[in-house]
C-alpha cells in the first residue's frame, strides 16, 4: 500500500492520536490555539470513524478548564477567551453529544456582548472585527439553539456589506475576497437562512476558477494551491450547490498526493511537512467529494452530518 492513490486512514488516525501527547516545537508554538487543533483533529477522527480513540472525559474536562467567567473559551488553559476558541469548544462538545454540559445562556451572553451596532462582531474584548467572527457567532449560537441572543438581521446586513465585485466576501467592508473568508460568510448566511443574498453564479464561477492545473485549489487568483482550500472552496461550492463546476477527480488526486504515507498526516502541498490543520481539511475535503468510507461532513457547520442532525433533532 505504498502509494498515494488511496487515503491511508489508519496512518492519519495514528498521526492525530500522536499529537495528544507530543512535546515538540510545533506543538509548543501552537499551544495557544490548541482548542482549534483539538477541533480539527477530533473532527477528522470522527470523519474517519475513530472519534473514540481518544479519552473523551479527559478532553471535555480540559475544555471546561479553558472557559472563563465571562462565558468565552480560551485557546488553552490560561489563555484569554476569544470567539474562535469558543466556537471550537462548542463544536467539540457537539461531536461528543455533550452540549448539555455547557451553560448555553452564559456562552450566548458572551457572544451577545461582542456584537456591535452595525451587526459585526468583535473577536474578543479588544475590538478586532472580521467576518470570521460573524461566522463564529452565528454557527456557535445555532449549535446552542440560541440564535435569538443576537440581532441576526443586523449580523446578516453586515456580512452582506462585505460582498465584493467578484461575488466573494472580505474580512470587513472593502476587504479582498478570499476563500476562507467566503466560507465564513456563505456558511453564516446559509445557517441564517439568507443565502439569497449570495450571487451564486458569479461567486460559484470565481470559486471554481480557484482550481489550478495540478487539480488543487487556491484561495485567491494567481496564488498557489493548498489543501486547506479544498475545504474553504469546496464547502462554499457545496453550500451554493455548485461542486460539479470543478474537476472532482483531479482535486481528489491532489489531496491524496499531499499525504505523508509513511508517518500519516496531510500537508498543504505535496512533500511539505504535515500538520493537523491540513490533515483535517484534506479529510474534510475528501468527505465533501464523497470519498468512500468517510462520514459526510456538513459544509456550513463543519461537523459530520450525523452530528448536526443529532443537534437539531
Amino acid at each position, binding site marked *: 500500500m505504498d502509494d498515494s492513490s488511496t487515503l491511508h486512514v489508519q496512518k492519519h488516525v495514528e498521526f492525530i492520536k500522536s499529537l495528544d501527547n507530543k*512535546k515538540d*516545537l510545533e506543538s*509548543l*508554538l501552537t*499551544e*495557544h490555539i490548541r482548542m482549534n487543533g483539538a477541533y480539527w483533529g477530533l473532527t477528522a477522527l470522527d470523519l474517519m470513524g475513530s472519534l473514540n480513540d481518544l479519552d473523551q472525559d479527559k478532553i471535555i474536562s480540559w475544555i471546561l478548564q479553558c472557559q472563563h467567567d465571562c462565558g468565552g473559551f*480560551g*485557546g488553552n488553559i*490560561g*489563555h*484569554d477567551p476569544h470567539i474562535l476558541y469558543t466556537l471550537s469548544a462548542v463544536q467539540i462538545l457537539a461531536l461528543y453529544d455533550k452540549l448539555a454540559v455547557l451553560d448555553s445562556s452564559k456562552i450566548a451572553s458572551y457572544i451577545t456582548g461582542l456584537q456591535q451596532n452595525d451587526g459585526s462582531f468583535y473577536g*474578543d474584548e*479588544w*475590538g*478586532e472585527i*472580521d467576518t470570521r467572527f460573524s461566522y463564529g457567532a452565528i454557527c456557535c449560537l445555532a449549535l446552542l439553539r440560541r440564535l435569538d441572543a443576537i440581532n441576526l438581521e443586523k449580523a446578516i446586513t453586515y456580512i452582506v456589506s462585505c460582498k*465584493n*465585485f*467578484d461575488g466573494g466576501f472580505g*474580512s*470587513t467592508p472593502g*476587504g*479582498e*475576497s478570499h476563500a476562507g473568508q467566503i466560507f465564513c460568510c456563505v456558511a453564516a448566511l*446559509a*445557517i441564517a437562512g439568507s443565502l*439569497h443574498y449570495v450571487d451564486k*453564479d458569479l461567486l*460559484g*464561477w470565481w470559486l*471554481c*476558477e480557484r482550481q489550478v492545473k495540478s487539480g488543487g485549489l487556491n484561495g*485567491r*487568483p*494567481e496564488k498557489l494551491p493548498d489543501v486547506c482550500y479544498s475545504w474553504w472552496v469546496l464547502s462554499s461550492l*457545496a*453550500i*451554493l450547490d*455548485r461542486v460539479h463546476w*470543478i474537476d472532482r477527480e*483531479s482535486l481528489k488526486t491532489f489531496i491524496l498526493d499531499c499525504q*505523508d504515507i509513511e508517518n500519516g498526516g496531510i500537508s*498543504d*502541498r505535496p*512533500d*511539505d*511537512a*504535515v*500538520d493537523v*490543520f491540513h490533515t483535517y481539511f484534506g479529510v474534510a475535503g475528501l468527505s465533501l467529494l*464523497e470519498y468512500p468510507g468517510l462520514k*459526510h461532513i*456538513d*459544509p*456550513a*457547520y463543519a461537523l459530520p*452530518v450525523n452530528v*448536526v*442532525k443529532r443537534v*437539531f433533532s
Partner: protein
Amino acid sequence: MHGRPRKRGGGDGGASEQKEKAKIAFLEPLQAQVLQNHHNCCYTKEALQKNARLLELNPEVNTAWNYRKLALRHLIASEQDVEVHKALAREELRVIEMALARNYKSYGAWHHRKWVIGLGLSLLENEFRLLDKFMDADARNFHAWDYRRHVASVQGAALEKELEFTRKKIYDNFSNYSAWHKRSTLLSQLFKENGVDILKHSTLSSEFELVHQAFFTEPDDQSAWFYYNWLLDHAAAAPDPKLLSTWPSDAVLITIDEQSEPSQLLHFRGISGLEETILLEGVPIFLCFSKPVTGVSGLTVSVQSVPDSKQALHGLWKPVANKGGASNIWSADLNHFTDAKIKKRVYELSYNVRIEIGSTQGIISQDGHPFLGPVHLTFVLRSTFVGSYIVKDDIHGEQNLKIVEDDKWEPHPEQALAAQSLSMLEKVTWSEKLMKEEIGLCRELLELESSSKWATLTLARLLEVQQNISQDKRLTLRNNTAEVLQLYEKLTRIDPSHAEYYQDRHSLNLLDQITSDSAQLKERWSIGLHGSVLGRDIGILWLNGLSLSKLGYMERLLSLQMLDLSYNHLRALDGLEALQFLVHLNLSHNLVSCVHTLRPISKLQRLRSLDISHNKLTGNSYTGSGVSVAVCWDLSSKNRMATPSSHTFEYLNDIEDVFKCMNLEELAIAGNPGASDNQFRVSLLESLPSLKLLDCKSVP
C-alpha cells in the same frame, strides 16, 4: 504550517534535532513566564521585554498582545507626560514591526497596530511608509491592504489618491488582483457619490482601456478578466430591478367563461400563440422582476378596473417565493367582478384592467436599488355567462355592458416593458456602441490567441450582453445565440475541468433562444397528446432531451400548465416557482439529488401531477441544494414520522417537508434509490394523503 518541506525518516539525533531541543528549552519557560505575568498583572519593564521577546519569536500568541494592551493602558494611566506616552507608543510599533518581520500575516500583530494607532499618539505618515515596505515585499498581502484602508480612512485620504495608488500597483504588475479589487471598491464609491451617467460613462471607458492593456499583455492571467467581467456588468445594465414579465401581459384579452362556477374557465392567447384555457377560481395577477424586491403593495402598484373601479384587488400582494421579505415574483387576485350579479340570463361584460407598477416609490431590490417605474399595462377581461342561476338585484346597469372588438387586442409582448425612460434609451445606445467595440477587440485577441479560454469566455459574455441590451432583441438573438452556443461548446473542450459550468451557460442560452422565439415555442408545443388529465385538453411544452443542466427564463412561460423536462441533466430547479399555473411537470431522468432541490416545486400550488422518477434523490445532506439539514433548522421539525432506520429512507421526511403543503394527486418516483422498497411506498402514501396515483398505480 505552510511551505515547510517534509522531513524524511525518523529522528537521527542530528544537529537539527539538537537545535529544536534548544529552542524548546528556551521557549517553554518563556511562554509560561509571559502568561504568569499576564495573570499577575505584572507590567514591569522586564516583564514587557520578556513579552516582546516571545512575540518576536511567535507573533501568533493573541493573549500576549492582549497583555501588551493592558500594560500600555496601565502605563499611560500612571504617567502624565504626553512625550512619555508617545515614546511608549513608539516602542509598541517597534515590537509590532519585529513581530511582522517574523510573520507578516499575523492577525494579532496587525490588529495591535490598529489599536495603538487608534490611541492617536503616532504619525500616520509613518504608517504609509511602513505599508510601502510591506507591499513591495508582497503586493498581494491582504493584511497590508486592509491596514492601508484603515489608515486611509482614519486620515480621510482622498479617493483620487487611492485610485492613483491602485493604478500604479496595476501598472507594476497586471496580475495584482488585490489592486484590481481595491479599484472596484473605489469606483463603486465614486459612482455612488456621483450618480451621474456622464461621469460613469467616461470613467468606464478609461477603465476598459486599462483592462485592454492588461489582457493584451497577459491573456492567461485571470485577474484582469474578472475585473473586466465586473465592468461589463456596470456598462450593460443599471442595477435597478426591472419588470421582466407579467400575467396577464400587456394588451391581452382574456375571456372568462363562468359556466363552471365557482371556478371559471379563462381563455387567452398562450405562449404558443394559440388560444389556451385555464381553470381558475379567480383572476390572479403575477409580476416578475429581474431580482428579488420588497415593497410591492397597494401603494406602489395601482390596479384599476373600468368600469368597476371600486376595489379592484381582492386581498394583498403576496411574495411567491419569500426571500427574507423579498421576492422576484409577486401575486395578487383580482376581485371577482361578477360579484355584482346582473339581472340577465345571458350577458357579456368587459372590463379594462389597468395596472401601474411603481406608481409611487417604494419597490426596492434587496441590494437597495429602487424600481424606476412606472410601467403600465392594460388588459381586458371579458366575462360571459350563459347559465341559469338566479341573479340578485341590479347594481350596475346596462351602460356597463360593452363589447370590445377582438382584433383590437392583439398581444404585444414586452411592449410596456421595453425601455422605460429616455435616459435609459441614451444609455442603451452608449452601451450598444461599447459592446460593438469590445466584441471587435475580443475577436482581435482571439485571432492572436485562438485557444485563449478567457478571451473565448469573454466573447461569449459580450455577445450575451449585446443581445440583452439590444433594441431589436429578436434580430440580435438570432445572430448571436448560435455563436454563443458554439463558444461554450469550444470552452467545454479547451477547459474540460469546468465543463459543467460551461454546460450550465449553454443551457441558459439555449433556453433564452427557445423562450423568446414564438416559432420555436410552437414547434415544441402540443395539445391534447398528453390526454386530458384534469378533464380538459391543455397544451404541453416539450423541453425534454435538450441536455439542459440549468433552468432559466421561466418568467417568459408564466401561463404554462404542462411542462416536460424529462431526459435532461438538471440538478437544480431554481426558477420553476415562476410557473404558477403548472398542473403537470415531468422531471424524470434528470440528476436531481437532494430533496431540497425540489423546494421551488413546493411553491406551485396548482401542481397535481409530478414525475420525478429516475433521478438520484437522496437525503437532505449537503449533496443537493447545499442547504444542509441544519441550515433548515427553521423548517418545522415537528410532525415527523418515525425515521426508518435504513439510510436509503432518510429522504422520506424531507419529501414530506417539501410536498406537505401541496395537493399532489399523481407522483412518479420509481428509479430513485430505495424507492422500490415496499415499506418506503407505504410510508410515502401515509405522508401524502392526497395521492391518487403512485408510479401509475392507483392508490387503494
